[in-house]
């Protein structure tokens, strides 16, 4: 295609299909929250329309790209588009990390009477302003007040699954880097092997995260377990969602590598997904350190 001309796609119906999908999803979600029996079905329908739209639209973009309809101007547009998407993702997680720091460093100490009770007096007799997850050293114990404590010892054990999951995700960063190197060197079989390894590690991470949630929920840590439970599930839950999306993206990239869509010097699709995976990896490292250790 002529480098001086900007490729303008012809009229497309995918945006309106996407809008219908999002609207259906939210109508279903709102009614589900209000207890409507049909809310879940409408949500599922909206989600299916969204998936159909993404599959159709992205397929069209891939076809246009592989047929040589894009020039360097379009390439720049894709790079800027991905960068703004990443900016929104960084702001998204920055807000949740800020919520964690605010609750932990300011609001919880204030509730506990920090700064000479300048902000709040003691809320009620026996109130304890603790940020960290409390683990009682005797499972099933009873407090002096007679309240039974169902929280067992070592509710959130930083040495266990969280450390294992961190190792898995960091290892996936290494395997993805090997795949990236193989792509730049033009070794397609190696790219496929390392990408498969990365996807397997991502799926393993998700499996262990579900197991961790099962333990935590069973032991009494829920979204409603105060500010710690809320921030814990919001941060780790949204991170898990991003890992899920990342695994899907890597799977699509694996398919495209097998189809020979990328060359050693032209592989923006791979680069965008690789950076996204590294970002998700770093977010987890931050979570592991600030939620479990510092």
């Amino acid at each position, binding site marked *: 295609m002529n480098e001086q001309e900007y490729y303008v796609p012809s009229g497309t119906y995918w945006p309106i299909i996407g809008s219908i999908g999002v609207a259906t999803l939210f109508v279903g979600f709102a009614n589900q929250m209000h207890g409507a029996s049909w809310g879940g079905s409408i949500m599922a329908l909206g989600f299916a329309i969204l998936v159909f739209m993404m599959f159709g639209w992205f397929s069209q973009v891939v076809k246009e790209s592989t047929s040589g309809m894009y020039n360097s101007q379009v*390439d*720049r547009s894709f*790079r*800027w588009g*991905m*960068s703004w998407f*990443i900016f929104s993702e960084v702001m998204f997680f920055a807000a949740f990390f800020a919520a964690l720091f605010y609750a932990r460093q300011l609001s919880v100490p204030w509730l506990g009477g920090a700064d000479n009770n300048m902000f709040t007096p003691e809320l009620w*007799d*026996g109130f304890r302003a*603790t940020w*960290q*997850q*409390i*683990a*009682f*050293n*005797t499972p099933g*114990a*009873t*407090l*002096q*007040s007679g309240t039974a*404590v169902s929280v067992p*010892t*070592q*509710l*959130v*054990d*930083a*040495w266990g699954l969280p*450390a294992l999951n*961190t*190792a898995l995700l*960091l290892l996936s*960063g*290494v395997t993805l*880097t090997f795949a*990236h*190197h193989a792509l*730049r060197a033009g070794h397609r079989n190696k790219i496929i092997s390392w990408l498969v390894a990365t996807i397997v590690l991502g799926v393993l991470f998700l499996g262990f995260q579900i197991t961790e949630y099962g333990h935590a929920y069973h032991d009494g840590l829920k979204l409603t377990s105060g500010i710690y439970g809320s921030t814990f599930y919001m941060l780790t839950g949204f991170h898990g969602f991003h890992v899920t999306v990342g695994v899907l993206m890597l799977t699509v990239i694996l398919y495209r590598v097998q189809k020979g869509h990328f060359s050693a*010097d032209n592989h*923006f699709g791979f*680069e*965008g997904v*690789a*950076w996204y995976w*590294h*970002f998700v*990896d*770093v977010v987890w*490292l*931050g979570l*592991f*350190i600030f*939620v*479990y*250790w*510092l």
Partner: protein
Amino acid sequence: MTQVVIIVVIIAILIALGLGLLGMLKGGSAGSDKMFKSLVIRVVLSLFLFILVMFAAFMGWIEPNVVMMDASTLK
């Protein structure tokens, strides 16, 4: 001191990740090189940080974010 080192390494990781993003945005051969090298640094620093945190915990320099309480002493 250990905590300061951990924070410094986290900042270095974020800078490497950010440089990788700039490389991707730039594109072309030079941008692709910059992106790859930055992400390699990111991976190496992350592995170092994980080992540092685990070692510091093993040595008792940092404690997990879990408060152990004796239930019988609480109201």
